[in-house]
């Protein structure tokens, strides 16, 4: 009995049928559109400039214009060739069920034209798994997307949890907002006496569900097995 994923067929609904307007109102509509697009062109240029100006205004020492849910503070910031470089930034945010998460890094680089994305180096994040279980994530490099509340870690990562898991990844995509993580590269998870290896893994529902796939290998050491039997009052 193999479990097949259910494909949901997405149907596209086409809407059509617009009446043909009389000639005069067509010119009017055309003029209106032309003025509109002119306005849009102006705004398209003006807005980014304004945005940079506002961002520049905020640069200073501490506060960055960030959505209330995510706050970035850093020791000092430098602004060079359109890139904002922050030393020891500290980012705080909230998952969708309002659990706080925090992240520090050695360095963060943010392109002024794209405020939502921050490149991080030397990352140290702590993520809530559930009320009394936190995950600590350490990674060399990653890209944090503030708007989507996600962290894409492209290099080796170590994850440790308060209840004793030590997990090693080659890369991982964390969706802090949803409390999910996924990796399509080999994973090793260790806990006193048992080890799980697989070539891909998904963590869902804030660490409630772990799905390992592709060459899953689990080893349970004797002493782990022993304590199970002792606890069950055998020996």
């Amino acid at each position, binding site marked *: 009995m193999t479990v097949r994923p259910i494909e949901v067929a997405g149907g596209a609904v086409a809407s059509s049928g617009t009446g043909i307007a009389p000639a005069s109102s067509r010119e009017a509509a055309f003029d209106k559109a032309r003025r509109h697009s002119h306005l849009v062109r102006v705004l398209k240029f003006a807005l980014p400039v304004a945005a940079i100006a506002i961002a520049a205004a905020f640069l200073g020492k501490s506060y960055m214009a960030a959505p209330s849910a995510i706050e970035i503070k850093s020791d000092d910031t430098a602004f060079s060739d359109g890139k904002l470089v922050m030393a020891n930034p500290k980012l705080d945010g909230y998952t969708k069920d309002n659990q706080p998460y925090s992240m520090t890094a050695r360095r963060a680089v943010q392109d002024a034209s794209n405020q939502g994305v921050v490149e991080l180096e030397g990352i140290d994040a702590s993520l809530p798994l559930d009320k009394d279980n936190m995950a600590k994530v350490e990674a060399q490099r990653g890209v944090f997307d503030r708007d989507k509340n996600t962290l894409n870690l492209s290099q080796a990562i170590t994850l440790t949890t308060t*209840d004793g898991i030590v997990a090693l990844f080659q890369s991982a995509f964390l969706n802090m907002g949803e409390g999910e993580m996924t990796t399509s590269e080999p994973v090793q998870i260790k806990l006193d006496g048992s080890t799980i290896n697989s070539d891909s893994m998904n963590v869902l529902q804030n660490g409630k569900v772990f799905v390992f796939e592709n*060459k899953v290998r689990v080893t349970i050491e004797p002493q782990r097995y*022993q304590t*199970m039997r002792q*606890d069950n009052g055998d020996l």
Partner: protein
Amino acid sequence: QTDGASRMSGLKLSGNLPIQIESDKLEVRQNDNIAIFTGNVNVVQGKTAMKAGKMTVHYANDGGSAATGSSNIERIEIDDKVFVKSETQTATGDRGTFDMKSEVLVLSGNEVVLSEGPNVLVGCKLTVQMGTGLAEVEGCKKGNQPGPGRVMMSLTPGSQNSN
């Protein structure tokens, strides 16, 4: 003829060897305290091995967490054609359960086979005490036939005194 059950010993779990489990997929559900191995499940401990299509490990909800394996295994359910092999014996069935506390493995199905060399026992239920290795096959109840079902047993002459 035996009383519908016959005994052999050989299937055993040794307490001091690591258990290795392989499968295509493993899903650990913390809230339900279960870990589900699916797809070519292969469990090996020393010379004892078990193969099945699916194996569900039930953890006791004693505060530990299924994902970390820190909580204790209560029982294991095995589905989709179970094959168990030890140094001297093999057993097959449609499904099985293994109770951690009593260390009793039960294989069931419409044709459960326990064989040791040329000796074969066929019935509907095999109960093995994995601590001692004592195995017992119970026959299949045909319709409303009274009493325990019949166990087909074939012993090859001269092999009785082999173990």
